[in-house]
């Protein structure tokens, strides 16, 4: 067998103008569309509020998901509760749909390890992963455990297109291929890895084609089209559950914000490019479609905006009232039983805090 290039068809259901391409599949119900929309609006509200918190010194460095809400939302809606989600760090929407409260997500970015203490359906999910691409390998391990035990579950991992340059990405994908692991890889191709544009990240025409290296299925979807993302992930999850192996999904989107609050993207990319990208962003198009389909009206929009604002403000309040964790916690979770040397160091830290009048 060899592989030859053929013209590519990116999967899309609702285009940038809110028009349906072909027809929506059965899996995409009105209810789903409305839930998608509500989720995306909530997450955008959250996102902008957290950026504001950071600007006023009440938050650590934060990675905004502005413009990429459809990816996290599509994933969150398609993933099943027994599956395991391994995020990178722009997965606010998925985490929200995995029932991780907004204030807990704030607590993470605010710098408190207790934020990673998920419960409910996220109980086995991984926390955000900072060392790029390493989570892809963990996901292969999680999927291996599922396969070894013969469970009908899968792991779903996300990463950026920059992450696809790292060895971890390929080593893990290769394993997915050869062990036929129940695993879904979703690449958020937001065109930038900090200041490095997609075209100097790899010579491959698409990220999706990297799947060929592992002998697995790979395809591109419009990552600003929540329906397309949802449908693609649903397909890949079902495939994984039925023992047919892994899938690489390239969700093509755009990072409308800075890389993080520590970054200033005007240094390396043009306003024009960003303005162009705004025309394809995910929320507006779905709103247009919902309006056009009489699924949504101005009152509902008003109510939703108000609701989201309130929820987010409530989360901010909870977040800001959460105390820093007890100092002892820094020492007691390295090992199941705290060894002697750490017990000693803990004691010293507590004494020091006491001396300094700290809590």
């Amino acid at each position, binding site marked *: 067998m060899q592989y030859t290039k053929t013209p590519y068809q990116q999967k899309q259901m609702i285009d940038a103008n809110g028009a349906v391409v072909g027809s929506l599949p059965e899996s995409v119900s009105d209810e789903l569309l409305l839930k998608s929309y509500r989720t995306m609006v909530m997450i955008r509200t959250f996102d902008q509020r957290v950026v504001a918190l950071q600007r006023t010194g009440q938050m650590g460095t934060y990675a905004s998901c502005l413009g990429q809400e459809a990816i996290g939302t599509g994933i969150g809606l398609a993933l099943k509760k027994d599956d395991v989600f391994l995020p990178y760090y722009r997965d606010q929407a998925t985490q929200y749909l995995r029932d991780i409260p907004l204030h807990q997500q704030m607590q993470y970015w605010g710098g408190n390890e207790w934020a990673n203490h998920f419960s409910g359906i996220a109980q086995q999910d991984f926390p955000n992963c900072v060392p790029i691409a390493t989570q892809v390998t963990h996901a292969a391990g999680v999927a291996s455990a599922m396969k070894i035990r013969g469970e009908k579950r899968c792991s779903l991992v996300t990463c950026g297109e920059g992450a696809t340059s790292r060895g971890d990405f390929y080593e893990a994908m290769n394993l997915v291929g050869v062990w036929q692991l129940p695993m879904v890889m979703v690449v958020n191709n937001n065109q930038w890895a900090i200041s490095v544009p997609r075209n100097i990240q790899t010579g491959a025409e698409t990220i999706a084609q990297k799947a060929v290296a592992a002998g697995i299925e790979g395809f591109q979807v419009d990552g600003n089209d929540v329906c397309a993302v949802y449908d693609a992930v649903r397909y890949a999850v079902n495939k994984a559950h039925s023992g047919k192996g892994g899938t690489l999904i390239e969700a093509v989107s755009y990072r409308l914000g800075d890389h993080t609050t520590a970054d200033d993207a005007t240094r390396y990319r043009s306003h024009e490019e960003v303005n162009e990208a705004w025309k394809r962003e995910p929320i507006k198009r779905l709103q247009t479609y919902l309006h056009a389909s009489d699924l949504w009206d101005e009152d509902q929009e008003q109510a939703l905006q108000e609701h989201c604002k309130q929820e987010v403000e409530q989360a901010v309040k909870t977040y800001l009232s959460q105390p820093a964790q007890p100092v002892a916690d820094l020492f007691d979770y*390295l*090992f199941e039983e705290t060894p002697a040397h750490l017990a000693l160091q803990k004691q010293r830290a507590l004494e020091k805090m006491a001396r300094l009048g700290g809590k």
Partner: protein
Amino acid sequence: MGMHEKIADLNQKHKPVDTKTPHVVTMIEAINMALHRAMDADPNVVVLGEDVATNGGVFRATVGLKDRFGHKRVMDTPLAETLIAGISVGMAAQQLRPVAEIQFMGFIYATMEHIVSHAARLRNRTRGRLTCPMVLRAPYGGGIHAPEHHSESTEALFAHIPGIRVVIPSSPTRAYGLLLSAIEDPDPVIFLEPKRIYRMVKQEIYDDGVGLPLDTCYTLRQGEHITLISWGAMVHETLQAADKLHQQGVSAEVIDVATISPLDIDTLVASVQKTGRCVIIQEAARHCGVAAEICAAIQEQAFHSLQAPIARVTGFDTPMPYLQRENVYMNSASDIVDAAIHTLEVA
């Protein structure tokens, strides 16, 4: 520390284990026996690595496991160390107990990101929600005339990392007991096997599934005049040195550190408080090796007992030479004796 309790959980058929008959085995056989025992006792224990399944490992540590426990629990991975470490983290987070083999310690560096940034932190990062009960086994050390990169002893790199245990057996008995405990341990363990002594001595072992504690040093020989501290293959030269010293009227205490991190410093300090003199022997390069930590910690805590500077017998700050000159690198019992005598001569 025993694994008996777990046998009840066992959800697969297993041969009844004879715990009464002693086996006279080498260290590599003891490791193989411990792996069998652990897999028998706990269905969550899985073994993975390069050439560990069909081939039984290039040193035969995993021989027989695939036939006994099947390919789902004994897995030949693709040739990728980062992957081996990384999927072990993922498996462990799903409550498996992966025992991964890195074929030689010289190829362990590609695992470091997953060990340092993930295995060592998963419990802490999630405040106990996800844990990482994995074991990363690797043959280590020189002296077998192997090609380049097959003789490394860079245990210090792992010893510096908070959140993992680093365990090194130096006899068949300790290999069996420490490996069982490492696998049973709820946290990640780097288990380094001094390959030079894989087949050097045999000991009588009962396959009783009883582990040895990971939080203690092992005093192999009591003595009054000087404390000799070592771990891994060098324990053998150290014991020989103690014999030679004995012939010269010197009574040397010999301690096998066994778990180099976290360290049982109390045992070491107590010994030096008794003897007042100390030599630490490591195979690894000198600069920033584990001997430095032991030396620093002892002088901190036993300063007023010390009658002479603590001496270190170590490898050179060079890579292990290609095989024609390997012998220059390795220290012998005489080198240890010399250092001890020198230390004893300090007024």
